[in-house]
């Protein structure tokens, strides 16, 4: 029996994902990639690894690049067939010079002012360095903003903060994908063994950021000038805002990607329509039940029997 390992600091919030992936076989949740040795991967017969970086990591993200590289090496040595990195479209950065519908070949935003984005770029780069260059097949998924769960490039932490900033005069279009659709995308990657490389994952559509906030009943504070920036910085330090000033370019410039390559490679089609996605009513009762953890959590001892 082979196992799918869900690793990374974002794994603890991926409960729904676990339920979906169990259809493909047992899963093993493990948050800390540093403690994953080759022997442990072999012991569990891990055939695929899904790495989830810290979701909503606009602020205070720890550097994961080193741990991720170690996991990549371990996977290669342990003969793991596939590694899926849930990156996000923020690796391209937000700029007024960008075109719409960026392809996967767009350069990384390596000099992004936001440390969290630079960190994600480092992880993405490390993964892409192994594409066609090792035993393990590496797939990097770069989803657009995720709604409906704290998964990948989730907008939920931004929207749920006490202080939700907006930059006066700017209201970029944001592409949205449901966490449920993203789970299906990961499932599709795992069920296509030959798949390799980077893929943008898009959802039902795009709307202005103000529309998402309005539909979710979130009151945003419009930042004006230096005083606005100072106010936001204070809110970040006090833990009320999740958008540091270094990340504000994502609230001013459009960042849209082209997801057609992934759709062509896997037959992926988003299932959650735009209105329920934006208004936050996309989860059916059945899907809400997916939040029950079906497998061993990382807090349990490594030798704990699997419940999947």
């Amino acid at each position: 029996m082979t196992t799918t390992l869900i690793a990374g600091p974002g794994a603890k919030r991926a409960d729904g994902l676990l339920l979906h992936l169990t259809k493909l076989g047992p899963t093993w949740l493990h948050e800390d990639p540093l403690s994953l040795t080759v022997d442990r991967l072999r012991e569990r017969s891990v055939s695929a690894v899904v790495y989830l970086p810290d979701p909503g990591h606009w602020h205070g993200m720890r550097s994961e690049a080193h741990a991720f590289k170690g996991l990549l090496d371990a996977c290669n040595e342990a003969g793991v067939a596939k590694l899926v990195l849930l990156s996000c479209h923020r690796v391209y950065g937000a700029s007024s010079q960008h075109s719409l519908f960026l392809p996967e070949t767009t350069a990384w935003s390596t000099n992004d002012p936001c440390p969290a984005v630079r960190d994600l770029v480092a992880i993405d780069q490390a993964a892409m360095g192994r594409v066609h260059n090792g035993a393990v097949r590496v797939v990097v998924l770069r989803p657009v903003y995720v709604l409906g769960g704290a998964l990948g490039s989730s907008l939920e932490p931004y929207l749920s903060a006490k202080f939700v900033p907006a930059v006066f005069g700017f209201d970029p279009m944001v592409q949205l994908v449901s966490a449920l659709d993203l789970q299906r995308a990961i499932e599709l990657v795992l069920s296509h063994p030959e798949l390799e490389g980077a893929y943008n994952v898009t959802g039902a559509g795009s709307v202005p950021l103000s529309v998402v906030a309005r539909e979710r009943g979130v009151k945003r504070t419009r930042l004006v000038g230096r005083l606005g920036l100072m106010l936001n910085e204070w809110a970040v330090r006090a833990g009320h805002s999740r958008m540091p000033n270094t990340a504000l370019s994502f609230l001013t410039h459009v960042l849209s990607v082209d997801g057609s390559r992934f759709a062509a490679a896997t037959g992926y089609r988003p299932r959650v329509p735009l209105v329920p996605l934006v208004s936050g009513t996309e989860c059916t009762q059945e899907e809400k039940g997916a939040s029950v953890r079906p497998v061993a959590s990382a807090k349990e001892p490594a030798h704990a029997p699997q419940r999947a």
Partner: protein
Amino acid sequence: MYAGLTSKIVDRLERLATPDVRERVALLEKNTNEYGYDEFGFSRDWLRRVVGLSSWLYKNYFRVETHGIENIPPGRVILAGNHSSQMAYDGLLIITSLLLECDPPRHPTGMAGHFFFNSGMYSQLMPRIGQVNGTKENCQQVLARDQLALIFPEGDRGGGKTIFDRYKLMPFKHGFMRLALDSNTPIVPFAFIGGEEMVPSFSRMESLAKRAGMPYFNLSPTGVLPLPTKCSIYFGKPLAFSGASSDAAQVGAHVAVVEDRVRELIATGLARRTSIF
């Protein structure tokens, strides 16, 4: 306070939109989603409000006359012409003319300068009325959807001309021709008359503007407000080109043809004009 002010402005603009404008905006072929936005960020509501104001300016303030609009063929087209007016009033009036004068109404997607998307308000307004960042990829997307692309091949050098250089055509950039060749798209040349005197600028103040991330500032006695010049738009016959977009010499020769045609249209327009106002 901000929300109250915004809704007052919106109300006023909604009142300016005549039934004809409302009907014409509703008739536009745009794939908008359930929230009323297309994938470029276009919104019929925003366009209706903006055209509500611009159509009043078009008819009463600038008294725009349009000639040869029937030359614009259906399907994808590149509209290429002279740029003026400092604040892209010419672009707005061309959009208005196509909406009011074409049957059925048409709406061009303008290829705007990067700097518009760096400044608040413009950054929000431009996509909502169907204007996108003027990159090659964005223009390809517009043409792939069989839409009209509005391009000012002079770029900001044309839009920010001083009054001393009025109606002198700056050298056209070649990107629009490469796109036309690659996508087999006809080019409709046009001339906009009246824009050069609208916001008469005496200097581009480039060194100062660069510090603010802008290509130019206009030094004008009217600031950014336009004078009520009499405007006219002349659309020429569509031009079809063929050849390889990688052949720089051929592309240059094709661009020269378009430049000459725009120059002729400007000369015609200036000869017919009886007064600036």
